[in-house]
């Protein structure tokens, strides 16, 4: 955090000054580790084992915040007797279907709900990255569910959790993660002790957790701990996702993503959402609890914002204008389709996939096989110059005279040359004032898309084709100003906020949304940002003039609420858990919820409220159901639906690992998204043979002085001077083993690429003793490429493409490689080197990556033995130095 989010880290230091204990878990010792109370080096890709160990520690010693757990979580809920755990099935859950690599989730449901499974086969949800929909809400479940408040029932969630995590002992944590037991226990004890009425603990993660084939389950495990300890919805608690781009949260809320519409409404699927009613009911779940009961109003209001007068209740608000998903249309699938010649044109808007996405070679080969490419950026980034200046030009795979892609580079306006809002990592919208005009041809995206849309509509005017109706019916009449006719960002923000159609009056809360066409709302979770016709995101009351919650600085979605689920900061009766941790509480005299923040609860619903028989929607939320967006009003320790790879997290090895999974016969996530494509490959892992060809684990992350793919930092003189060169960090032990010298050159080889880097030998990387052998890890920054003031090979070129099944994010925080001294070969010899490694590793066009590696599925395509170690891995041992 000190490296990648330095100014945010001041609050960790502030907490430390007040007595907080700071633990830092990372494969590499960083500036964060330097000031932490305790640093735990970890083998990349094993965090579920570590966190699972903490869960076990809490449960075995009954250290959970029991009052909170009983009242606000599903710990007491009884699960179906058809559910079978990884304990029973050697690393698989019940319902696994080897043919599709996905689950039938009926048996995961609460007892009595088996027939209500949302998902009977998770393959389709995987293709549509359905997990992302839950960024603003949980999955629904039919209510009510059976509970055992004593937590003794063998099938209650609490007991299932205990059994599931029983094998995540301190010994196992050490064996899997390489973390010594005393270090682990120090963390587990401190975390558990910092819980209860008087205390809370916070958990901070970043893409070091998301970029894995089990990334969502990492976060789930963190959520289980934070829920057991009563750290959610309370001040000083929470799970804080630190995001890496100025408005990456905003671009998820108002998604430039294929599977979502604004406010986490799903993009319709051709088979499941044929009609408006099908679509709305799939979001609304008639008869169920919570605020999603009103989703018909959110959906109708969005379509009304898009299609204005043309959208009427009679024509389902032009629902048929929406394009439909049929499967996986994610960015990696797109790139493979580009290579296969299926995509004509590609827009790159302030993003540089040639350096920033996994498998850079696939990215560049895809771009070289388009009809046209539009790049909008501040600088001539690698993704704009791939046709003349990429590694593939050097190897002869891209020949400029034979590359057909027509490239348009359009200069973009910078953040000070336009006005608008960014949504930062804690959902806070902050309006930026414009300082100066953009230079030359540089324009904002607002300008580009508004005028592009205008031209498209002019060309199509009078078109007889039904397909053009959606463009022609579109509301696209934003006021413009200035010599370049810049559209008004405030007018767009007003539309995002939503307004009453008849009067144009801005709405002040999403509860005012209607499903009859009388309201238009661009993004319902942002309603309120323009309340009273005032740009609330532009508020800048100084921190010196308000309290610590700082509610008058910017505007946070939803409803300017700074901490979600803050009803949980009070006990079931509505009283603060303690004076020290007071945040939102029930004021019986006033008959309303009050406190420092906007209460995340209906303002006047008393803690004693109990829903009448048969209630649904918001009315079904009881006065002590603190988790109001969840289908049962409870925080989920066990997720009966919504998570595609299991109701509980289980440790799986990364898709590329030098070792066999010590916990289960199932080696890697059995539902991970794998692309069998000639350009893609996965280095072999046990139980497959030849994993020793790529014996080392590598991971990548950021330097403080650079930003992601480098397009905004390698081009900036002070930053380029501070970090001028690509390098690889290795431990002295690995340097000795591989013959690397400090400040000399090394090259790293995977099944995809070979890249070179200067060697930095440092004890910031520790060889880990794991399952009886030594695992060496290498660390690389991923910022470098061929353009800018400072250049270097791209670390992301080393990665293949394997994705998390829930959100289709790639595993690019861990892979396997070899490392050798000296510079890499150049020209065609480079391809020969990689080909030689592939041959030795058995990576042939015929090879299929084994998905199921245990016989427990019954009739599965078990590809290998479930022996503790493959012969190949055992052979490595003398390198690693003996047994545990």
């Amino acid at each position: 955090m000190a490296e990648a989010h330095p100014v945010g880290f001041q609050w960790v230091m502030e907490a430390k000054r007040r007595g907080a204990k700071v633990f830092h878990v990372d494969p590499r010792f960083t500036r964060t580790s330097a000031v932490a109370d305790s640093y735990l080096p970890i083998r990349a890709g094993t965090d579920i084992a570590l966190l699972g160990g903490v869960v076990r520690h809490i449960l075995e010693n009954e250290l959970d915040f029991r009052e909170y757990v009983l009242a606000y979580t599903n710990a007491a809920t009884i699960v179906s007797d058809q559910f079978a755990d990884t304990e029973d099935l050697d690393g698989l859950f019940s319902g696994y279907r080897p043919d599709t690599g996905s689950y039938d989730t009926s048996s995961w449901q609460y007892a009595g709900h088996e027939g209500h499974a949302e998902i009977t086969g998770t393959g389709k949800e995987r293709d549509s990255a359905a997990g992302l929909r839950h960024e603003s809400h949980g999955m629904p479940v039919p209510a009510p569910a059976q509970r055992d408040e004593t937590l003794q029932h063998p099938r209650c969630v609490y007991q299932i959790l205990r059994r599931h995590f029983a094998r995540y002992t301190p010994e196992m944590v050490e064996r899997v993660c390489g973390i010594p037991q005393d270090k682990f226990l120090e963390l587990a004890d401190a975390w558990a002790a910092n819980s209860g009425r008087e205390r809370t603990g916070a958990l901070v993660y970043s893409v070091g957790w998301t970029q894995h084939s089990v990334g969502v389950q990492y976060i789930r495990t963190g959520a289980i701990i934070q829920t057991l300890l009563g750290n959610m919805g309370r001040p000083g608690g929470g799970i804080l996702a630190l995001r890496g781009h100025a408005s990456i949260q905003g671009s998820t809320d108002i998604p430039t993503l294929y599977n979502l519409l604004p406010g986490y409404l799903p993009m319709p699927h051709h088979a499941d959402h044929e009609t408006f009613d099908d679509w709305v009911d799939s979001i609304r779940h008639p008869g169920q609890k919570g605020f999603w009961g009103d989703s018909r109003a959110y959906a109708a209001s969005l379509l009304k914002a898009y299609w204005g007068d043309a959208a009427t209740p009679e024509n389902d608000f032009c629902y048929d204008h929406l394009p439909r998903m049929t499967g996986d249309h994610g960015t990696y699938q797109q790139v493979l389709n580009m290579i296969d010649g299926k995509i004509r044109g590609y827009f790159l808007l302030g993003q540089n996939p040639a350096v920033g996405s996994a498998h850079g070679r696939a990215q560049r080969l895809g771009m070289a096989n388009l009809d046209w490419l539009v790049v909008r950026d501040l600088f001539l980034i690698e993704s704009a110059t791939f046709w003349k200046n990429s590694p593939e030009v050097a190897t002869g795979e891209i020949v400029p005279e034979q590359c057909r892609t027509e490239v348009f580079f359009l200069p973009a306006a910078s953040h000070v040359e336009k006005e608008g809002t960014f949504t930062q990592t804690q959902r806070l919208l902050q309006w930026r004032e414009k300082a100066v005009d953009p230079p030359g041809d540089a324009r904002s995206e607002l300008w580009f898309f508004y005028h592009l849309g205008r031209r498209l509509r002019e060309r199509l005017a009078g078109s007889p084709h039904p397909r053009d109706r959606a463009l022609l019916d579109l509301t696209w009449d934003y006021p413009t100003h200035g010599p370049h006719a810049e559209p008004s960002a405030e007018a767009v923000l007003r539309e995002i906020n939503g307004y009453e159609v008849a009067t144009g009056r801005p709405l002040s809360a999403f509860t005012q949304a209607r499903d009859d066409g009388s309201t238009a709302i661009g993004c319902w979770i942002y309603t309120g940002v323009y309340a009273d016709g005032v740009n609330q995101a532009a508020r800048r009351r100084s921190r010196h003039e308000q309290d610590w919650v700082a509610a008058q600085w910017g505007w946070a979605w939803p409803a300017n609420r700074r901490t979600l689920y803050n009803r949980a900061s009070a006990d079931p009766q509505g009283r603060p858990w303690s004076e020290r941790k007071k945040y939102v509480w029930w004021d019986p005299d006033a008959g309303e919820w009050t406190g420092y923040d906007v209460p995340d609860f209906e303002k006047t619903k008393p803690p004693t409220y109990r829903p009448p028989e048969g209630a649904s929607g918001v009315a079904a939320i009881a006065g002590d159901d603190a988790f109001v967006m969840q289908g049962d009003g409870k925080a989920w320790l066990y997720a009966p639906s919504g998570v595609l790879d299991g109701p509980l997290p289980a440790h799986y090895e990364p898709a590329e690992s030098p070792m066999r999974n010590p916990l289960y016969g199932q080696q890697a996530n059995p539902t991970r998204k794998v692309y069998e494509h000639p350009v893609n490959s996965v280095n072999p892992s046990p139980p497959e043979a030849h994993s020793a060809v790529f014996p080392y684990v590598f991971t990548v992350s950021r330097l403080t002085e650079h930003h992601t793919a480098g397009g905004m930092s390698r081009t900036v003189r002070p930053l380029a001077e501070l970090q001028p060169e690509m390098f690889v960090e290795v431990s002295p032990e690995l340097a000795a083993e591989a013959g690397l010298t400090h400040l000399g050159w090394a090259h790293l080889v995977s099944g995809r690429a070979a890249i070179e880097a200067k060697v930095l030998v440092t004890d910031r990387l520790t060889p880990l003793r794991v399952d009886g052998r030594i695992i060496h890890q290498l660390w690389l920054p991923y910022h470098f490429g061929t353009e800018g003031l400072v250049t270097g090979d791209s670390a992301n070129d080393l990665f293949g493409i394997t994705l998390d099944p829930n959100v289709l994010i790639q595993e690019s925080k861990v892979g396997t490689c070899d490392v050798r001294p000296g510079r890499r070969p150049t020209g065609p010899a480079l391809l020969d080197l990689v080909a030689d490694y592939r041959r030795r590793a058995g990576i042939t066009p015929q090879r299929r990556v084994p998905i199921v590696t245990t016989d427990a599925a019954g009739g599965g395509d078990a590809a290998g033995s479930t022996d503790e170690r493959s012969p190949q891995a055992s052979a490595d041992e003398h390198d690693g130095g003996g047994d545990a």
Partner: protein
Amino acid sequence: MGLRTFLAGWPVYRQLTGTDPLGRGAAAQSARSAALTARTETADSVARSVCPYCAVGCGQRVFVTDGRVTQIEGDPDSPISRGRLCPKGSASKSLVTSPLRQTTVRYRRPYATEWEDLDLDTALDMIADRILAAREDTWEDVDDAGRPLHRTLGISSLGGATLDNEENYLIKKLFTAMGALQIENQARI
């Protein structure tokens, strides 16, 4: 020059007697630096902005003189950043004024080995033509069962995490209306 004036010219004296015992401010100031005026004091205008790099969202003040950005500093009022900026945020003046920035449209013809110039207006027209052609060639009205698809898989887009909400909103709205489903951004990465 009296003794007092002489002594006051000596930083250690000022440090020991003045308001700056650590010698990091007034005590260390030379006659030359005392005579300087900060760019921030003479700016024509100040825009309240936000750092464009990571998602911490540090507040910035952008100082402008004669239509040019002369300085970008942390906003001390911000409850998020309390006036601080990290190396990237501090370098954002160099970012926006970088001589490497491209300020004209560049065009690479198919099979060409070099860039050419192109007029912005022409570029926009050419892009509009290509979108319409790609839509026409790859349009899918309905699936095998006759259910609506209303889309093109011939067009892709990547980007949004560095852009404004208002921009993302227009991008999503326009692409959706075009039937161009395949839009993605860094949130997938």
